[in-house]
Structure formats: C-alpha cells, structure tokens
C-alpha cells in the first residue's frame, strides 16, 4: 500500500465544486507536484491533506490511517507557505524550534535539532536574527527548516517559490529538492510554474478545473500529454489540423504534404501537437518537410523563436542564435523538417 492514498476526494464551496473525484497514491519518499493554473483546485487538495479544509467527500489515508477527521495539529505534516509565515516575534532559532517546543521537547534537544536544521539550510549563523532581518530566500529556507524540525511524516509546499525573484527561485528549488532527497521525506509541492514542476518532481499531477488531468513523470507529461489541456499547459505546443487519409496506419495530409504516423488515428480530421524544438529549419534528415513563410522573429538571447505560416496554420519553432549566421527574416520562405514520430495526436 502507498504511503499516501487519496481516493475520490471532493470539495465544494457552496454550489461550486472545486475538486472533483481526485485520486492519487504517493509512495514514501516521493516528490509529487500538483501543477495547474490558478483556481484549478491544487491548493485546495493540499489544504485538505494538511487538514485546513474538510473534504466534502472522499478519503485521505496516511500509512493506511484515515486522517480526514484529525485536526491539522494532530497530523504531523510539515507545511511551507508562499508568504513564508514565519512568526515575526520569534528569532530564526525560536521559529525553527517552535514545533519541537510545542511537542514538549527539552531545551538541549531543541538546541541540537535547531543547529542541525540551520546547518541543513546553510544559515548556521543566523539563529539570533528576526525574520524581518532576512531576505525572502533566507526566510523561505528558515520556513523549510521550521517545517522539517519536528520530523514530520510528510512535507507540503504551497507555492513556496512564487514570492521570490527568478535567480533565488532557481537556486532554492535545487536546494529544496536536494534536502528532500537527503531526508527522503514524502513531499507534495503545489505550483503553477511548469519549469519548477518539471525540474523538481518524481511525478506531476496536472490539474484543471478540479480534475487531475494526467499523473505521470515529467518526461511523460511533457512528451506524451494525455489531454489537450495538458499539451497546451505544459511547455509550448503547436497544434496543427491534419486530414486523415488512412486511419489504420495514420496516413495524414498535413500543410499540403503527406506523412505517416504508423499508428491508428480517428477518421476525419485530427489535431496534432508538435513541440517547437521538434521542428528543424531545413529538412535535415527529417521524414517530413513542409514549406512556410516566416511571420514573426523573436530574439530570446541564446535562442531565436520563429513563427511560420503553413498555408493558414501557424507553427512556432526555435533555432539557436549561432554567431555569424543570420536568422530567417520576415516574409522569407523556409523549409521545415518534422519527424512523424514527434507528432502527438491530441484527444479532447
């Protein structure tokens, strides 16, 4: 049996159902991300696991024990909040030791554990400072140490990086992941940032309108999106309509040229998904070549993102900013290479 089992979880606020038949099993030590846009229900699921919201129906089992009726302070679950939520009246050391003190630990034990935790987060000398004397990144590290100090069964992270600037966000997400691996603590991480989810997680749950649209590894989610929403939400995806010529082998007419997917597809017209990085400027050995006209050139530093019109359908693709090589210009006719194996058939 999995460490955490969530089954048929539902939550309604008045007439609005914000979480619908949510199911998830999490193994011990796993790092799971709940990824989705604002209002998709991911934070509500997290808050139900933490005990801050009561489910309308469904079960939450931790180590086989139903915790739905337990109060948040009886669940032994550590939580890190977006707004840090450090106690302003307590020093860093007192904040980290708060959970242990509440549990009745002795002062020597608290001192030792606080020292360990501050060492773990790389702030061993800041125990005497108050939260307002720390940067945002430092405050969030302290919040992490505080959540981990009482040795919780599980760690919940509610968009902990959202309030930080871009550079700190990247370094802190690596730190969080390495600390999580070091301690082997089961972790649920809520984020709307797909890059964070893809880079940190063992598995990702993509949520939309209260439903878990897909659960899978980052690679699965990115390369084999199960629904149109997942395909559109995770990464950038070109969607191209294609006419089905032979549904049994997946022979299609795409932007005026034929290609074969070598797998069955529905009859009529299908929507294909294609990542920008799967499109090559020039055929370059790809099995399908289409021609288009450049309509947009965006300079993004090391990469240039281009858009081309394929006779009424637009496709975005990337090319490296190679020194000495000029990128295509607006209105230029180009040949683009595609691999039929990279084309995803998107189902609704």
């Amino acid at each position, binding site marked *: 049996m999995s460490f955490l089992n969530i089954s048929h979880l539902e939550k309604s606020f008045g007439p609005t159902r914000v979480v619908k038949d949510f199911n998830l099993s999490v193994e011990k030590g796993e790092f799971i991300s709940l990824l989705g846009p604002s209002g998709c229900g991911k934070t509500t699921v997290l808050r139900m696991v933490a005990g801050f919201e009561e489910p309308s129906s469904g079960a939450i089992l931790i180590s086989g024990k139903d915790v739905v009726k337990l*109060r948040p302070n009886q669940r032994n679950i550590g939580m890190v909040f977006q707004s840090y939520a450090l106690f302003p009246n307590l020093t860093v050391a007192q904040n980290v030791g708060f959970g242990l003190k509440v549990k009745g630990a002795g002062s020597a034990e608290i001192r030792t554990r606080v020292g360990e935790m501050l060492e773990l987060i790389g702030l061993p000398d800041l125990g005497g400072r108050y939260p307002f004397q720390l940067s945002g990144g430092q405050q969030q590290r302290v919040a992490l140490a505080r959540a981990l100090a009482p040795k919780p069964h599980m760690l919940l992270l509610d968009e902990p990086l959202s309030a930080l600037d871009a550079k700190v966000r990247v370094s802190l997400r690596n730190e969080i992941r390495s600390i999580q691996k070091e301690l082997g603590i089961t972790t649920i991480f809520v984020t709307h940032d797909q890059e964070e989810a893809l880079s940190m997680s063992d598995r990702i749950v993509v949520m939309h309108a209260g439903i878990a649209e897909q659960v899978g590894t980052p690679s699965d989610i990115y390369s084999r999106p199960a629904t149109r929403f997942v395909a559109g939400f995770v990464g950038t995806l070109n969607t191209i309509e294609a006419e089905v010529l032979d549904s049994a082998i997946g022979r299609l007419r795409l932007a005026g040229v034929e290609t074969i997917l070598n797998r069955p597809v529905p009859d009529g017209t299908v929507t294909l998904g294609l990542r920008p990085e799967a499109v090559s400027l020039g055929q370059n050995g790809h099995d399908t070549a289409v021609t288009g006209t450049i309509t947009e050139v965006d300079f993004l530093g090391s990469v240039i993102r281009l858009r081309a019109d394929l006779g009424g359908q637009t496709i975005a693709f990337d090319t490296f900013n190679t020194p000495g090589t000029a990128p295509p210009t607006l209105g230029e006719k180009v040949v683009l290479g595609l691999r039929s194996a990279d084309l995803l058939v998107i189902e609704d």
Partner: protein
Amino acid sequence: MRKAASWAILLLGMAYFILPLIGMVEFSLSMKRGEYSFEAYRVVLADPRFRETFMYSVVMALLTIAFGVFLVVPTAFWVRLKMPWIRPYIEFVTLLPLVIPAIVIVFGYIRLYNTSSWLPLTGSLTGTNALLLFGYMTLSLPYMYRAIDTGLRTIDVATLTEAAQSLGAGWVTILAKVILPNVLVAVLSGAFVTFAIVMGEFTLAALLNRPAFGPYLQLMGANRAYEPFALSTIAFVITWACMGLLNLVTRFSKFDKAPR
C-alpha cells in the same frame, strides 16, 4: 505669508490647549499666599482617602485590562479567522458604549442585579466590584476592540495560525505564543486608554457607591479650592505617562519592523 499664517494657526491651537493647563498647574501651586509651593499636593497625597481611592482605581483598571484582553483578543481573533462576515455586527456592538451613556448602563445594572433580583450582585462588595469591573470593560470596549482589531489587521492571522497548527500547536498556544505577542503594541495601546478611562470614571463608581478615584476627584472639587487642581494635575501626569509608556513600548518593540 502663508507660512506665517500656518504658524499663527498652530500657535493659536497650542495656546487653546496649553493655556488652561498652565492655569491649572499655576493655580495648584498657589495654595500658600504670595509664593508657589507644593502645599496642595502635600495635602492631597497625605489624605488617606486619596491613597485608598487611587489604589482602588489602579487595581480596577488593571483587572479591567486583564479581563478585557482575555475577552477581546480571542473574540477579535476568532472573528477575523473564522467569521469575517460577522465583523460589522461585532463592531456595531463594541461601539454601543459610545452612544449609550454610562448612567443608562449603571441603572440597567442596578435594575438587573439588585438585591431582589435572581443574581443579586449589588448585595455584596465583591458582587458590586465585579459589576463595576464589567461596567468598566463595557466602557473601554470600543477602544480595546478597535486597537486589537487594527493590530490583527497588520499581521496575516490566517497563515500564521495555519503555520502554528501545522507545527502541532493548539488554540491556546497559538493565541498565547503567536497572536498575542504580535499584537502586543495594539493591546498595550488599548490597555493604556482603558487605564485612563477607569482612572477618571465617575458615573459607574458613584452610583454603585464604590471608593474610586473619580468620585473622590468630584468630592474634592466640590469642597476644596486648590486640592482639586493638584489632583487634576496628577491625573493629567498619569495619563501622559501612559501615553509616554505606549510610545516607548512601540519604539523598543524588537520586531515591529517586520514586513507584513
């Protein structure tokens, strides 16, 4: 020209407030003919009734503050956390003492809790003292509630509560270790205003016949010339000392600069 006019208005305003105070202090020092002295203060401080009524009011003020904090902090916290929709009604109730005169309240108390009622609080000294305490709590409610509610508004009550809960804290620990220390300046500001109100309150104490400082002030004012002014100066100094303490507490609060 405009600057001069501003200064003139400011000085006029200051004179309006300061001149009566100067007059009061000057008169309180004029008990001995032809010289300034602290004779009136000596007489007042030597009066055992002064010490008795002053101490009585100080104790009542401290009890009012303690019970007020005990009542208002959890109430304001709970309203903010769990029942935000009820806030306008609570605010309305807490403002009622401003529009209902103390005399109405005390006659209500006497009518409800007299010796022939089902709860004869006025039948014993302890009961009457308790009744006076409740009256003081009622009078100070608008100031205490507003001060604490404003203090709670400056912190993220919900998230701090949830953070404490996730660390295993129960409601008492959350209130005592997280919420109260973070609104302490607000609590103190309410407490000092309460102290000033109780020290000068006359109606409740006089009609419940308790030996408080307010009735003593009135008694002296009716029967003596210089001593009431010395007493008023003392009361004024106490009030300003409260304000000064409040200012000090706010300034030396170690964590008051925390970003909210």
